[in-house]
């Protein structure tokens, strides 16, 4: 019995943020609208059985399976890149990395698990790999593993489950590493859901704007703006207004009287640089809190010099985080992701081993299946031939069951040595 499953050879070629500068990456970048066409074109290159293209801001990778290790892809891929992207192979070669077989599997698992990302643990990459896989399946560049002898389809499905395992068994993606998302995380630790919360922006600045947008995305419903120039405050409020958000302007001279309406205050005036007092002092904070009946309040002070007196943090119910504090939390989270990444690498290594073990046993499984099917067909054939000779009358159900059991037992005993030999993994020391 011979297997009709001839394992394909894997090759992964690509550039990413560590090997290529942005001007190289942007020349290879493929927009979602062109991804289907590019994948189809790659799959039609000579010698290539299946193909997948992953194109994100930080990487462009080409994963192919081909029939013969000696043939094509090493030459075909540079030609494809040259023809499709009009990039000369010489300018590209120094930035390209290439992985084959086991290393290609490992790389794909690492990419899907976000271990190879610029921000380790970021969640978008898995969705991007899935999107590339969907496109490749739609254009027929990857066959379905159920219908054909596809090697990329099971590989990618395995990559998705490895990524899922990494997410569930490690804390790699559980903490925020950007200032704005750290601020949102902290707000969540204080208020839980941000749904219905009120955010007050004091002053103006890109970072304050970004943090406010993050908080709104997480459910904050009311946005108040206060600025020394009321017109500027109105402009900011208008820019952030959406149908779902209520915005309002608080005149700067009424800031302290109205601040109690806000759960989260983002300050970025830098007022004290011009010799003016800080915008919020402990005394004012106590008054505001009293008006809020001691409901907690979160001050995000992005200004340098600071707008909120650090002593406000000592007031019960007030939480003050300045830019250094936020950066420190982000750095702690980043360091923690590094530790979690080590655990994730171990999971990936184990999964690569397991995948190869399964791949190695695939021909044997197929052979066993074929052998059992042939034996069963023979048994049925012999049973049908012998039944007429056994008795003129049809056999009773009990007799039929006895004959059936006898033939099954004989077949199983005869097949046992062959099946055992097929199930035993080959000894690597033994010559072919």
């Amino acid at each position, binding site marked *: 019995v011979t297997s009709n499953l001839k394992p394909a050879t894997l090759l992964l070629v690509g550039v990413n943020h560590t090997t290529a500068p942005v001007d190289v990456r942007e020349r290879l970048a493929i927009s979602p609208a062109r991804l289907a066409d590019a994948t189809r074109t790659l799959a039609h290159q000579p010698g290539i059985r299946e193909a997948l293209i992953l194109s994100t801001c930080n990487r462009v990778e080409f994963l192919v399976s081909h029939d013969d290790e000696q043939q094509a892809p090493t030459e075909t891929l540079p030609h494809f890149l040259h023809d499709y992207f009009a990039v000369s192979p010489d300018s590209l070669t120094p930035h390209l990395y290439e992985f084959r077989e086991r290393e290609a599997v490992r790389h794909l698992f690492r990419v899907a698990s976000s271990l190879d990302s610029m921000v380790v643990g970021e969640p978008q990459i898995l969705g991007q790999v899935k999107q590339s896989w969907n496109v490749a399946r739609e254009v027929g560049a990857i066959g379905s593993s159920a219908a054909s002898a596809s090697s990329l389809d099971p590989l990618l499905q395995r990559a998705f489950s490895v990524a899922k395992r990494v997410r*569930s*068994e490690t*804390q790699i993606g*559980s*903490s925020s590493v950007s200032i704005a998302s750290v601020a949102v995380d*902290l707000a*969540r*630790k*204080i*208020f*839980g859901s941000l749904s219905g919360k009120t955010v007050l922006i004091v002053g103006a600045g890109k970072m304050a704007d970004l943090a406010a947008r993050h908080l709104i995305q997480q459910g904050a419903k009311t946005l108040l703006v206060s600025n020394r120039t009321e017109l500027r405050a109105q402009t900011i409020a208008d820019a952030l207004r959406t149908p779902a958000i209520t915005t309002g302007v608080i005149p700067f001279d009424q800031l302290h009287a109205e601040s109690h309406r806000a759960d989260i205050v983002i300050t970025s005036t830098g007022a004290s640089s011009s010799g003016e007092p800080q915008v919020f002092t402990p005394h004012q904070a106590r008054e505001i809190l009293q008006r*809020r*009946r*001691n*409901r*907690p309040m979160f001050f995000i002070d992005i200004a340098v010099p600071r707008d909120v007196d650090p002593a406000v*943090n*000592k007031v*019960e*119910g007030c*939480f003050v*985080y300045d830019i250094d*504090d936020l950066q*420190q*939390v982000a750095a*702690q*989270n980043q360091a*923690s992701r590094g530790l979690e990444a080590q655990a994730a690498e171990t999971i990936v290594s184990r999964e690569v081993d397991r995948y190869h073990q399964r791949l190695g046993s695939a021909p044997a499984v197929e052979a066993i299946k074929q052998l059992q099917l042939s034996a069963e067909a023979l048994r049925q054939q012999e049973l049908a031939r012998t039944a007429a000779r056994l008795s003129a009358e049809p056999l009773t159900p009990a007799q039929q069951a006895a004959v059936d059991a006898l033939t099954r037992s004989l077949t199983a005993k005869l097949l046992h040595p062959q099946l055992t030999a097929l199930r035993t993994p080959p000894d690597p020391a033994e010559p072919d």
Partner: protein
Amino acid sequence: MSLLWLRVAVLLYGIAALAVLPAALYNRPRWRHIAVPAALAAAFFHFVSLAETFYAAHRALPVGSHETLSVLALLLAVAFLLLAARYRTVAFGIFLLPIAVLLTLVPAFHAGRETLAYPLAGPAWIFLHVALLLAAYAALLISLLASVLYLIQERSLKSKQTGPSRFRLPPLETIDQIALRSLLLGLPCMTAGLLIGSVVALETTGPAFFADPKVLLSLAMWAAYCLMIFIRQHSGLRGRRAVYLSSFAFVFVLAVWAANQLSAVHRFTAP
């Protein structure tokens, strides 16, 4: 047989109490998947054990400290499960599950031999009196624990040590909600429990019942409970002062419990 179920429950409470530590301290979901089902199974066996005990003794209320503590432990375990289901937090299990283990350990391995000294009038009312008061105690304990957890979370946020490996607690507002809701739930339980007890006592013992230290302390406890809710609702008291206030009310509960030993009329077990 009931003792066997109780021992199984103690074992499961122990497993849940251990599993809840990594689940709550390091946010490990796998351990959460052990802690919650183990606590659920423990509560089930515990209930079966109590039901068998009461059925065999032909009564529907706990007699003696062993049984009373065992019922309280079951209420605390149920409270943990409700909090885990409603607020997706197992942090309360760090305290509630070990308490449940401690409260069931003695009854499981040293069963009480107490019996009722005399048949009680209106057993259904007495059952309600006991159940409601135990529920009120459980609510007060949860409120105290919530205040402590609030304080820990507040300190953690103020110290700015909020790295990923830190103690994973629910958000401050959620903890505060739990503290207040448990108090608000406990107040009608305590009020109804005391009222039922007073009416039954008036019918059986007469006005002399109200001169008993246990009864007087119970009324003081109710007043402290009301005062605590009023202060919390009125001023939005949170954090350190809320812990002090809850501790103050809890001291009353302990005093009421201890007063059983001094009470002349509130004793129902046969000598």
